[in-house]
């Protein structure tokens, strides 16, 4: 069973690397959000792997990291939702989703009228 934990631990490490690379190199903000979620799930998996090593007293995985990951997943979802709401508002306000400050300041075509 420990071998499984090692396999998934290596998988988690690669997922963190993939997420980090995507976060840096993808120009689209939405892609950055997705990459950040991949990175986050890798970190959560590392928790799970360490917890798997702490199997004791008839429990297969240390419950404390499990509970931390459950809270973490929900918080990550809330952060993603907030980030996407910001992005959609940016798009609504400026008609583009670029994060560069030196790009043409397009005539603010705000459909909502404020």
């Amino acid at each position, binding site marked *: 069973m420990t071998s499984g934990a090692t396999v998934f631990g290596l998988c988690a490490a690669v997922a963190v690397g993939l997420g980090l690379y995507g976060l840096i*190199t993808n120009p689209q903000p939405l892609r950055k959000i997705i990459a950040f979620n991949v990175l986050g*799930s890798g970190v959560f998996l590392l928790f799970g792997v360490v917890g798997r090593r702490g199997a004791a007293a008839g429990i297969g995985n240390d419950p404390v990291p499990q509970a931390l990951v459950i809270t973490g997943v929900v918080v990550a979802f809330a952060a993603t939702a907030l980030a*996407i709401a910001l992005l959609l508002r940016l798009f609504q306000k400026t008609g583009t989703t670029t994060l560069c400050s030196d790009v043409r300041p397009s005539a603010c075509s705000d459909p909502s009228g404020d």
Partner: protein
Amino acid sequence: MSIATVFEVVLATVVLGFGFWTTAVRKTYSAAVGFVAYGLLVALIWVRLDAVDVALTEAAISGGLGGVLLLGAAARLRDSETTAAEAPGNLTRACAAVLSVLIAAALAGAVWLLPEHAPTLAPRIVANAWATSLANPVTNVLMAFRAMDTMLEKVVLLLAIIGVWSLAPDTAWGGRPGPCHRADPNGVLAFLARLLPPVGIVVGIYVFWTGADHPGGAFQGGAILASMWLLAIMAGLADTPATSRRWLRCILIAGPGLFLAVGLGGLWFGSAFLAYPAAYAKPLILGIEVAMILTIAATLGLLLAGAPERSVK
């Protein structure tokens, strides 16, 4: 190599394949689809790690609701995908690749060097389970031993929803979140949205209720209830409530509010903040959880619906 190890290697490879696809594919919409598949398979890894509670959360919230969120955003931002000029140069890419490989290698090395038996809190949790008379150790940690984390996490959800709502244009302040979904009331989506929600409600409440003794709980149950609500909204059978509604705001603060009240009660009557009197531990926890599942279902649904876009009229 045993057959279980082969299965684990294959599973890890497929998960990484989806992770790679999600990072490398050109279209954002395809990346969102890849992330959904990735999230659902990661849930299988959690099952193999003997953490079924986390697997349910990962499948329901990260893969399911998170996937809907990303797909919806990708569909709405489709027109903005033409700005490819700002892609970073080769030097930046190479540096990012080196950095990512180094960090992944360091983490992999740490995993490789982990001791066979890590320090663990499991025996102490089993030894103290009598205090709450709940059999699920994860629920014990969430609701009693680390209740502070769970309460603060409810506050984070509340802050997130306030943040999303505050992005509303002035004209739509206090209005209905998200676009108006107009689907054919006789269509197939409406048909599914008429049949499935009652079943989903029974399953959601079951997942919540069984969380006391078996894998499950308020987060997973709340996510199922939220998805049923969203299905009805997307099929045009229901509409998102105006954010200025008093009952909605009461539901949103019910979970953290009751949690805080019980915690202060512990300070007043007992020894410490969030200390449950042993005789009432189980009913108190259940009460908090009932308030929590309502709050979680409403918050997750509203986070997905997004900022208010339509005025109250």
